């Protein structure tokens, strides 16, 4: 074969297995679900177990593969340590995530097995995003992921919230995809190249000369930047995330909150640091402004929130602000800080959502998910371990040592200070202090508020508690060997 080498199949081993397994699962699900003879069984739990198994096998496949650092599929995809690292992290975290979701689906009576199919397809899309090396591949992978998310956001058909969330996400996402496509086409139109490697060689040395002749290319890069920032909900393009996070059912929100940012941040790293490195040097301040705005809007917005999911959405925006601030330094220190931050953030998100998903209240004869922040008053009396783990998670998000969130913020701030972006660093610290307030307000509600009526909490499922304990172990004790994560990130960046 002239155009496809045998290495290509090895490079995409995980994805090929994954896609085949999903198709097989789909066929299995369709046949079973529509069979009149078996009485249209609800196979959601079955499919969830099978998809967990698919995840385990693909994780094993990814981790055991060699990394020769080549591009594959006609230079559409790349396989270096960064993509290896991100892929294995995504698969590991999604494995843990799927364990949390088991009990939620059962209790909330989400009987559609397609939930798992669509989620698996979204995970495949994220794997593609993290190893894409061409503008076309990038666009298609992002589209793939986004469409999966649109479907997931409106999954609960009977709830108006959910449909509204899905619709808003779809419209705004389509809009940003249009901007992305316009940027890509302008970039291709002015340079004739779509490969990241080719583009990086094209842009070499532009800062040495007068760069006014590539205005259109600037325009294209700015458009792509805007679209990417939209996807990771950085301000001022963050408007969709509170509504979508709140409207979607909580298992989908957990999916949104934990996984996609990892892949997108690695894509942003590849795009800004490798492909358009010289161009972005001139666009430095756009990153700074976005970072500043994200932090401000995230912090101030989260202060006034009363519901859990919106609160998590706004705090996500402020964390993303930190990540973009890390990228705005345009140095590898900053990228290190940003990638470290996103890894720690993913871990913390996993812990947060495993706690939020266990907030179920008993209102006979059914249970319902807690919606308001103030519903967790006096949690310490009901479930002290849950309250303690929430304390650990909140401290990590607030950036208090020795939790890993502190290290993440420290690395980003150090790189900011090294690049003389002192104003941004001071604002970051100030807004961290303010965000500390609303995290600790939650702790105060749990521990120190007395109410007359306490909601009855449904006990946590075994799977959720397993994941919770694993993440708690990591969160609390990782400071002893923090170079596990930092070495990982270093290898990802420099190999």
């Amino acid at each position: 074969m002239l155009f496809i080498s045998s290495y290509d199949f090895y490079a995409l081993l995980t994805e090929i297995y994954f896609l085949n397994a999903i198709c097989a699962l789909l066929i299995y699900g369709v046949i079973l679900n529509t069979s009149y003879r078996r009485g249209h069984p609800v196979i959601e739990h079955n499919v969830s177990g099978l998809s967990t198994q698919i995840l385990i096998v693909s994780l094993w496949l990814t981790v055991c593969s060699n990394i020769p650092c080549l591009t594959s599929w006609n230079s559409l995809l790349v396989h270096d340590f960064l993509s290896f690292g991100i892929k294995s992290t995504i698969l590991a975290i999604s494995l843990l995530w799927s364990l949390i979701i088991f009990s939620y689906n059962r209790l909330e009576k989400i009987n559609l097995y397609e939930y798992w199919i669509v989620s698996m397809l979204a995970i495949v899309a994220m794997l593609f995003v993290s190893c894409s090396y061409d503008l076309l591949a990038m666009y298609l992978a992002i589209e793939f992921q986004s469409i999966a998310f649109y479907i997931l956001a409106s999954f609960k058909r009977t709830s108006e919230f959910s449909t509204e969330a899905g619709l808003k996400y779809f419209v705004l996402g389509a809009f940003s995809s249009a901007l992305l496509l316009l940027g890509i086409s302008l970039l291709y139109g002015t340079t004739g190249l779509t490969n990241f490697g080719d583009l990086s060689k094209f842009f070499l040395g532009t800062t040495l000369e007068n760069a006014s002749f590539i205005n259109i290319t600037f325009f294209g890069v700015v458009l792509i930047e805007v679209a990417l920032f939209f996807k990771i909900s950085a301000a001022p393009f963050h408007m969709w995330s509170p509504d979508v996070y709140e409207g979607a059912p909580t298992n989908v929100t957990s999916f949104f909150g934990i996984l996609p940012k990892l892949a997108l941040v690695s894509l942003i790293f590849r795009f800004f640091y490798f492909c358009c490195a010289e161009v972005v040097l001139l666009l430095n301040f756009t990153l700074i402004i976005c970072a500043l705005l994200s932090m401000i809007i995230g912090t101030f917005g989260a202060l006034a929130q009363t519901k859990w999911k919106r609160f998590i959405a706004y705090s996500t925006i402020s964390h993303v602000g930190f990540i973009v601030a890390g990228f705005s330094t345009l140095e590898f220190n900053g990228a290190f800080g940003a990638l470290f931050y996103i890894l720690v953030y993913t871990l913390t998100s996993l812990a947060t959502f495993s706690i939020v998903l266990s907030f179920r209240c008993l209102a006979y004869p059914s249970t319902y998910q807690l919606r308001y922040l103030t519903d967790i008053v006096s949690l310490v009396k009901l479930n002290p371990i849950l309250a303690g783990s929430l304390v650990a998670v909140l401290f990590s998000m607030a950036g208090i040592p020795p939790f890993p969130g502190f290290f993440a913020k420290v690395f980003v701030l150090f790189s900011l200070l090294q690049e003389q972006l002192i104003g941004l660093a001071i604002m970051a610290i100030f807004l961290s202090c303010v965000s500390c307030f609303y995290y600790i307000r939650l702790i105060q509600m749990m521990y120190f508020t007395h109410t007359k009526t306490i909601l009855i909490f449904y006990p946590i499922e075994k799977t959720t508690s397993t994941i919770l304990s694993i993440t708690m172990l990591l969160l609390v004790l990782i400071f002893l060997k923090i170079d596990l994560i930092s070495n990982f990130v270093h290898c990802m960046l420099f190999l």
Partner: protein
Amino acid sequence: MYLLIIALPLVGTLVTGLGGRWIGRKGSNLFSTTCVVLCVFFSSIAFFEVGLCGVPCYISLSPWISSGALNISWGFLFDSLTTTMLVVITSISSLVHLYSIQYMEHDPHCPRFMSFLEIFTFFMILLVTADNFVQMFLGWEGVGLASYLLINFWYTRLCANQAAIKALVVNRVGDFGLSLGIFTIFYLFGSVDYEIVFSSANIYTNYSISFCGFSINTLTLIGIFLLIGAVGKSAQLGLHTWLPDAMEGPTPVSALIHAATMVTAGVFLIVRCSPLIDLSSDVLLLITLLGSSTAFFASIVGVFQNDIKRVIAYSTCSQLGYMVFVCGLSYYNVGMFHLVNHAFFKALLFLSAGSVIHALSNEQDMRRMGSLANSLPITYAAMLIGSLSLAGFPFLTGFYSKDLIIEITQISYYSNLQISFGVYACWLANISVLFTSFYTFRLIFLTFIKNTNSYRKHIENIHESPPLILIPLILLAISSIFVGFLTKDIFVGIGTPFWGNAINILPTSCNLLEVEFMPSLIKWLPFVLSSMGAILAYTINVGVLKNNIQFAHNHLFRKLAFSLSKKLYWDKLYNSFIVSPLMYFGYNISFKNLDRGFIEFVGPYGISRTIKNWSTKVIKIQTGQLTHYTFFVIFGLCSLLLLVPVWDFLQFLVDVRLLVFCFIALFVA
């Protein structure tokens, strides 16, 4: 043994202060008195060794502060000046301890009193035995603290509270001056040790500091600052207002602190720093003027006081003025001599006044006493001896030192000695002699000799004081008679080797011999003046003019008498011009406007309010309308595009200060 002198009072105070509850009244009495009596023995041995045998002792214990060029260590210096002071302090302190065992026997807080007396003794000893300025300052502050504690002993009394705070605050002003002096000494000499400073003082005679365009000779500046310290502690004119009010404390306190020891700390400072002060004639001029004005002022105010203790307090103030101005004339040894003598007879006066008060059931107003001579014979004898000594009756203690001082001022008429400012001192000192003897004898007449003015109940309950009160009186009376003669040659004899290195007098100022060769009439002047004062007092109170007081109705005389009894309105001046404005500023401006106002507004309260406001505003941007969201995306895109080419020169327009201003303006919103 030397360290024991310092350690014993410390042990005494800790044991009686912290453990007074367990060792009780008798135990604390016994323990503290034993400690101080032991100190007396040790300090007399030290006096013998150091003073009489001429063997000064330097003890260096351990480093204290070691920071860059500043090296201060704990060290003790026992030379003749120190041991003289030690003898005075410990002997009077032990007598006061004995006295107060009986005086305070009905007071439930006796252990506390004993421990406070010990604290005072400890800090005073620390002050005089220090070998660097900072350690002396430690002792200085410590005696200020002790005086606060002792004046405020009966702390439920409002007058005592106010008097104690006044004493502490006025002392503080003096301490401020002293600390500035220590800083200047460090700045000039690079060290605060006595040895280094005094040995190298000669080098810096022409050295000037320039400050705000003015150029001052540094030694003069140091001298002025030290003088301010001495003025505060020794109650010279200007910072003297605390001394009369400090009589609110119990009588033993007045005897110990305000007669013999604390108020002499200022004089001690001046004498100790004689190598520095003697080198600048401006400071000497200032000291003389200040001292003599104090002597005069205090004596005329003392004429019209009505409280026994206040009269004696003003007489202390006046005698301190004597000590200070004679130091200003460069005769430091004479000043020390007068200090030692004064300690004994003033303590005697205070203690016998205390005996009188105790006998009359706490009656302090002289106008309500009278003809106690028969009822309280020993007290009367003691008081008479003390008063005669104070007035300078020939060949008693006071005569030797006080008359020597006045004779010294007389020689300043010789113009080749270049102490012409001494003429001012001469006039004022002589007039003060008159008034001193007037009010002293007035006190005796009103209290003991005149007809009774007291209540019948008091007269019925009168009794001579118990022996523990009388023994100190007797001891002090004996020393009031003999100490002057016995120690005259040691302290002020011509060519005495006693002082050694402790006091430096410039060779041009050693003119003590001139005193001997004055016309006899001038030598009789002080005696004449004091007898005139005594006769005047007799005439007015007991003699001819007793019932014929037409002169007292004179309008001018009444005005003068009133203003004098109001202490020449010094208190009113200070209160209305310094204290009230400061209090007003402290409460209204700095507390209400700044602290609770502006700083709270910008600080915690302002920030939390602003953040809450802004978060509600930020939330309102999220409207929920899809079109608005799209608009924000386009708006963000366009603003980013707009700034792309513009940022390079926009950076120069956007100033950080403007941003800070806008940020602060957020607080208003």
